[in-house]
């Protein structure tokens, strides 16, 4: 039976009613990282733990990917039906900024400081017909 599966394990808590990004927190210096890291980039400690990073933040910077990237880009899109997509860094409550695809893909829909929320979206079908999903952010304003 075909199912929905995460494109990569450990990036977000899923399935569930309110998926959260998952990352790591250093037990020695308290710094967070996404995705979770076995060793801390701030202090080099190997004492890290996986924690929920939340599902909301504000847009710190952004751009729009206007042409279809070459490999390793891998989706179900073709050059004919490729749609430009937004890319940004979203600042989370813990302070780190996470790089993400954005639902919005036009310059007039995006601005620094925009409140954003996490969503789980399809990427492509795998060889067995399973739907692979990943995370992205979308504007939380005026919905």
């Amino acid at each position, binding site marked *: 039976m075909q199912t929905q599966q995460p494109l990569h394990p450990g990036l977000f808590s899923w399935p569930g009613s309110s998926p959260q990004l998952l990352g790591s927190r250093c037990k020695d210096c308290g*710094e967070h990282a996404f995705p979770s890291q076995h060793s801390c980039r701030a202090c080099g400690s190997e004492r890290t733990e996986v924690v929920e990073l939340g599902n909301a933040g504000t847009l710190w910077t952004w751009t729009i990917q206007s042409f279809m990237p070459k490999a390793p880009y891998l989706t179900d899109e073709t050059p004919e039906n490729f749609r430009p997509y937004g890319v940004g860094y979203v600042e989370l409550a813990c302070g780190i900024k996470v790089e993400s695809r954005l639902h919005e893909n036009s310059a007039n829909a995006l601005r620094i400081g925009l409140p954003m929320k996490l969503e789980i979206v399809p990427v492509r079908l795998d060889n067995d017909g399973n739907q692979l999903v990943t995370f992205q952010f979308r504007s939380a304003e005026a919905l």
Partner: protein
Amino acid sequence: MTDVAIVGLGLHPFGRSPSLSGLEQGAIAARAAIADAGTEFKAMEFAFGGSQDGGNADSLVNLLGLTGLQFTNIWNGCATGGSSLNAAYSAIKSGQYDMGLVVGFDKHARGAFNPQPKDWGLDDWYGETGLMLTTQYFAMKIQRYMHDYDISRETLVRVAEKAFRNGSITPTAWRQTALSTEEIEQAPMVSEPLNKYMFCSPAEGGCALVLCRADIAQKFTKNPVLLRSAVVRSRHYGSFEVFSPSQAPAVAPSPTVTASHAAFEFAGIGPKDVDVAQLQDTEVGAEIMHLAENGFCEHGEQERWINEGATEINGILPVNTDGGCLANGEPVGASGLRQVYEICHQLRGTAGKRQVPNAPKVGYTHVYGAPGISGVNILTT
């Protein structure tokens, strides 16, 4: 301790050379540099060389002669040329050698680079979902910078205009056609706010320099250029770098800032002493940000500087007089050495139509590249 001098300059023009391998372009540059110094390859006691896609630099001995010299391959991304120069500087400064060669060359496929996540310690999802593009990083860095320091789109256009205007008077440049404001403004958008004419392209080419002890330099040239410092630095925790799935809460200075500080300190020279500079301009935003990161102006001052013509060939700090990466393209292994080649011509007074007036005496070069590495060289007459 002896000073270190650059006494030979060689370049194979950047761009596209379908009939030549990358290695052959490196050999042409090396021969030109050695001839410029009036000497022979067998006089080279050492060589440091590097290439990303053009093969092993030490294969050059098959073309230049099997003389038995110490030939060390250097690969350090965009800072490859800077790292080779740093190694050559140390080899001469330490007294180990009197004379040697630094060479870089490359031959990249057309179109944007397509780096693989595994090579950068990342998992496949990062590339598969379309986040592994250097163009996005550069666009997002300047987007935030424009917001923080109130830099306008017009300034981005002006930087591109200058690059192609300088390229049009540089016989070895790849792009030798000046572009109008309208042509640049109306080019297709690549990654908001940067369009097609605001990015450099991967290219081909070769560049080489002959270095020796300063006290014997007059045997090889009447106008040696002194390499006063050659510094390479990597990133700190918190600097905003390419291929980063997340960034730290606190923003740390970029490796450019630390490399620049160290280079000025070693050389005993300050930013106000610099007469001509080459700053990494893989896109127009980089040139704007690098003006401040290298200490030439305050953050946010760039718009006024550029409007006043400060970075033009006749300005107070001419920047990228040969059109930089924007007009020359970027063969990664050779690009940093091209900057030094151009500064040496400016300091010799042999830069032709693009010569900076009033006999410049202090030059500066800067590269920055993935995953957060920077190289700075300071040169004087």
